[in-house]
């Protein structure tokens, strides 16, 4: 759609401009008419459950998938008309591993450098520099098949930076990694952003990851972009505080609190009940009284500020379920053991 692109020129501070992007797989709409812009130098988070359409969106932005409708400009280049320029200007770290395990870390980097025409004179120096940055310089001559999950991820990030892209895409960068390794990776990602001024677009279904890293977050569910704002603003939209009551009689408490006037919302979960209220400290005595009067056992009460989890719940009406994380992690390992499976 050349006319549309000409009518919507990119501003100089924009790294990416997405215009009505849509992807359909037969009758499934994986990405449904989304539009947004990413500013230069920002970390932009794509938050959504498994199957929301995050990877599909990144694949289109990286020109690996043709959009069904709409388009996008990446670093000023059209993803439909100027694929090679787009490809040269981005770094991509896919959700699933894409290393050659039979090659060493250095050889994987070298392969990439050659494909992107990084001149031989600087290639070696930059590879060593980047391997040092992700603390793999001492393992540079080891075969990748001897690497842990975290090391592989770090290598993929270093590789994605070798041709000096202006924008780095990270698809679920810490999927399946242990907490310590995740923390470490977050540090690298932050540092790349602050020290190199790199624009980073990351997708995740981990709330804490989106919250900690992103300057702005787009929440995406069922292919649709629900809302886009800074983590702070998103949390302030909910307002008030959240009381979580741990109780075996959640349903009884829920029906009692149905017509409570000072509750903004209430919801029962497995073994607990949450209420969104203003001035939670003043409301707790009343809540306890109601519970006592009705012989409802309370194990604990916690007050907390709204988290992204609450934001997600508020806008989509459901939580990002924990088991999804487990499902993808199994898939990620399963793929390597039992051959190909479609990402779901």
């Amino acid at each position, binding site marked *: 759609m050349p006319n549309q692109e000409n009518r919507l020129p990119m501003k100089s501070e924009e790294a990416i401009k997405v215009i009505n992007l849509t992807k359909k797989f037969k009758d499934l709409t994986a990405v449904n008419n989304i539009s947004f812009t990413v500013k230069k130098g920002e970390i932009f988070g794509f938050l959504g459950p498994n199957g929301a359409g995050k990877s599909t969106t990144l694949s289109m932005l*990286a*020109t*690996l998938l043709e959009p069904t409708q709409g388009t996008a400009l990446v670093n000023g280049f059209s993803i439909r008309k100027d*694929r*090679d*320029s787009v*490809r*040269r200007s981005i770094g*991509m770290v*896919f959700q*699933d*591993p*894409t*290393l*050659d*395990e*039979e*090659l060493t870390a250095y*050889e994987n980097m070298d*392969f*990439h450098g*050659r*494909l*992107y*025409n990084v001149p031989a004179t600087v290639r070696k120096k930059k590879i060593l520099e980047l391997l040092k940055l992700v603390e793999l310089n001492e393992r540079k001559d080891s075969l990748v098949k001897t690497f842990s999950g975290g090391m592989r991820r770090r290598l993929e990030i270093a*590789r994605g930076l070798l041709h000096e892209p202006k924008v780095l895409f990270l698809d679920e960068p810490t999927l399946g990694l242990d907490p310590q390794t995740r923390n470490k990776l977050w540090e690298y990602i932050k540092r790349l952003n602050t020290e190199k001024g790199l624009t980073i677009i990351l997708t995740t279904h981990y709330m804490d990851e989106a919250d900690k890293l992103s300057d702005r977050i787009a929440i995406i569910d069922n292919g649709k972009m629900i809302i886009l704002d800074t983590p702070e603003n998103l949390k302030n939209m909910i307002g008030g505080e959240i009381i979580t009551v741990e109780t075996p009689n959640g349903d009884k408490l829920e029906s009692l609190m149905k017509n409570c006037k000072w509750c903004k919302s209430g919801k029962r979960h497995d073994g607990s009940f949450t209420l969104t209220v203003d001035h939670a400290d003043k409301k707790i005595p009343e809540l306890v009284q109601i519970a006592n009067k009705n012989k409802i056992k309370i194990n604990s009460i916690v007050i907390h500020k709204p988290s992204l989890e609450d934001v997600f719940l508020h806008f989509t009406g459901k939580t990002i379920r924990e088991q999804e994380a487990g499902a993808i992690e199994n898939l990620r390992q399963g*793929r*390597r053991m039992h*051959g*190909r499976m479609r990402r779901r």
Partner: protein
Amino acid sequence: MSSATYTIWLRNLKRYIRSKSRIFGSLGQPLFFLVVLGFGLSSLNIPGATGGYLKFIIPGIIAMTVLFTSIFSGIQIIWDKQFGFLKETLVAPISRLSIMLGQTFGGATTALIQGLLIMILAFVIGGIFPSAMGLIIALVFMVLIGLAFTSLGIAIASKMEDMQGFQLIMNFVIFPIFLLSGALFPLTDAPKALKIITYFDPMTYGVEGMRYGILGSSSINPLICFLVLGGFAALMILIGSILFKKIKV
């Protein structure tokens, strides 16, 4: 050769050289064929197999090694698909054609090396010393077989989701191509029906061409062999690149 093509060729070679067990392991089968069939049937006087049956099948066994190695090299793209590495190549700012050619040249090179290894062994076992010109002719045919069947492997891999169909392809494509090529029997005295089928097998022209180079005589004119096999290789490269262009990851 573009630098992308060279890079992919280089990766193929590195992986090949590193897989010592594969190099030596896949020498086993052709050696087995050579020794068991060559010596086992040497007492039979097979008409058309002048110079003894062992010598007669040597070109065919070398051709077989090149055939199997190259098909397998092409099909390896499925592993790259499964292990994800293919994405890294596909998202780079290079054309699909340059990737496909890199893979084809890489597969043909490893098949050629593998063929040379068995050739040396076979020459020692059979006591053959072909002329330099004959050797060059044999090498040309080995290169053509390598290019054609790596491309065929890539074409198959572009259409296959996983390795599950591999056994099927092995049994219904690769073995027939080999067995019907006249690698193990002389075409001159084959029954008519079999002979006709054989002429439709592109591998026949590879085997006959190599026979001419190594043994100095063949039942099909070597120039015709060259033209047919060369044309087939070009066709396979074309089909392989068209199918590879549509590959989905």
